[in-house]
């Protein structure tokens, strides 16, 4: 769908875009994402770029809008970051499965790493509407890579900040402060979005505290709509059977304890030997 950028602003190391995208806002739920085409009509970059939906406004002055938070790191994100108001941008959204919401009003912890916090404020609002308490933990490499600390104070009942270099909040990782947060809040569910290492440690700490972790993963995606099979990762199903599942349509949110974390290593992910259809020794 053809959208139009109506506002763009820098936030720390990130670019915050507001895009008019009628129809999207009504359907979207926290944890879903948008896939944007980049580079305009002459582009040599054909693949869409995926971004968590930061928030939606079903009925703004301009019709429904969609907010994204973009870290410029390569040609596509740089192009998006350079967009100006009134530029056109091609958006497919909402995509993927949202964060599952608890049916009871429970205590929750929301953990965001870097721009991974983007979808969490909207999630926090939805959780609090349902009577849940919301504790937030935001971590990043440095202060400029934190996103939404001010917004977090509005959206959450309590906020903890960590940075690797100590430039803001606690010096260290979110996993350093998480045990204390779980103990203090007695949270039953953790929601997390950020780098894989962080998602793994949130899953571990949640498990240690008897909580369920719902994590939104980020795997390189070519299509975002389930047709290319590039975005797979090894995930156990309810029956405990591991399959290489598409994170764009069966994710990006998975139960953390279903993900085969041990298969990930230094930017690559192997196929566990017990996965369905895994290569046999000497086989494919």
């Amino acid at each position, binding site marked *: *769908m*053809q959208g139009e950028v109506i506002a763009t602003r820098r936030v720390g190391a990130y670019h915050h875009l507001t895009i008019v995208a009628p129809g999207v806002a009504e359907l979207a739920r926290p944890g879903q994402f948008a896939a944007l*085409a980049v580079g305009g009509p002459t582009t*040599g*970059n*054909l*693949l*869409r770029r995926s971004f968590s939906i930061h928030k939606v406004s079903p009925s703004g002055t301009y019709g429904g809008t969609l907010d994204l938070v973009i870290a410029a790191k390569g040609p596509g994100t740089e192009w998006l970051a350079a967009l100006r108001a009134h530029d056109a941008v*091609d958006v*497919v959204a909402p995509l993927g499965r949202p964060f599952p919401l608890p049916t009871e009003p429970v205590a929750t912890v929301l953990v965001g790493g870097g721009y991974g916090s983007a979808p969490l404020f909207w999630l926090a609002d939805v959780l609090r509407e349902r009577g849940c308490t919301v504790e937030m933990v935001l971590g990043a490499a440095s202060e400029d890579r934190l996103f939404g600390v001010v917004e977090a104070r509005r959206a959450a009942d309590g906020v903890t900040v960590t940075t690797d270099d100590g430039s803001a909040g606690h010096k260290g990782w979110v996993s350093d402060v998480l045990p204390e947060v779980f103990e203090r809040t007695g949270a039953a569910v953790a929601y997390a979005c950020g780098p894989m290492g962080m998602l793994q440690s949130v899953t571990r700490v949640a498990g240690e505290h008897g909580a369920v972790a719902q994590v939104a993963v980020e*795997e*390189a995606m*070519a*299509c975002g*709509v*389930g*047709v*290319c*099979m*590039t*975005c*797979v*990762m090894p995930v156990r199903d309810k029956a405990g059977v591991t*399959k*290489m599942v598409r994170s764009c*349509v069966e994710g990006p949110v998975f139960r953390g304890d279903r993900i085969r974390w041990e*298969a990930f290593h230094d*930017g*690559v*992910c*192997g*196929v566990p030997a017990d*996965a*369905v*259809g*895994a*290569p046999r020794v000497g*086989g*494919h």
Partner: protein
Amino acid sequence: MRRARRRGRRPEGGWPLMTVDLSVTLSGRTLPNPVMTASGCAANGRELHRFFDVSQLGAFVTKTVMMDPRSGRGTPRMAETASGMLNSIGLQGPGIHAFVEQDLPWLKSVGARVLVSIAGNTAGEFADVAKVLADSDAFDCVVGVEVNISCPNVANRGLVFACDPLSSAKVIALVREQLPRDVPMFAKLTPDVTDIVTIADAAVKAGATGLTMINTLLGMVIDTDRLRPHLGGITGGLSGPSIRPVAVRALWQVTAAMRDGRFQTVPLIGVGGVRSGRDALELIAAGASAVQVGTATFNDPTAPQRVLTELEALAESHGVARLTELVGVAHEKMVIP
């Protein structure tokens, strides 16, 4: 750009009816139009059906299916390249049994005409897959079988069937035996050969009723931060608009050879870098009777449908009554100054 023009009947009293007959007959099966998905670029239908009605396409081409379920490779499985991409999926799939029980019936239920892509680790496995398919309940929605003898991702001791005329012929002959005589069978060729005409010749002589060209080119990307191969599978298949000139050339060479009488004339399905109706017309003018849209679908999920709409408009602008008039037309229009 991505809003589909209403196809089919025009409003009464509306603009003049200049509809081009888009239908095409491939080895005895008539399709309403020549635009298809490309194997592995559209999964097995459900995903794209959210964006457009897949039964509107000439045919729906399924992801290559093998005998057993396959996990495919680890990740990263893809790298973006200049005007294209590299993939190394490793033929992930549910296996032919799950395919004929779940995917094929669904495609039939929505009215799609299906070109089923099959492969095997050995020539015998190709035949076994074909047999399960031919014996399946929903087989009547199948308008043909595409025999993927060219996938460079299968790490079958590094060999690709379609790199060798004998191996190609063997697979085709064995699959032919398992399929009812009237079922069209397309051999899908790789461009990674010194002489594609020789392979085409071998496949046709062995019983292929048509050819699909081209599969991906073998390529590689290196991650210059980590200084290691970007893909888990090291090499991968290059696709997208970047390879279109290679597809056009392959179609041209094989068409020229058939026109010269080097072997029997069979219909060609063109694939490689089609993103617009104009791209589709390029492949058709080189000799393709039908055209598949692959990587472009990742850029625009409605691409196959859009290509069809654009192709129709272009054919109209060229003033032909039937699209088939344009098949191979560039062979007749050369200017020798």
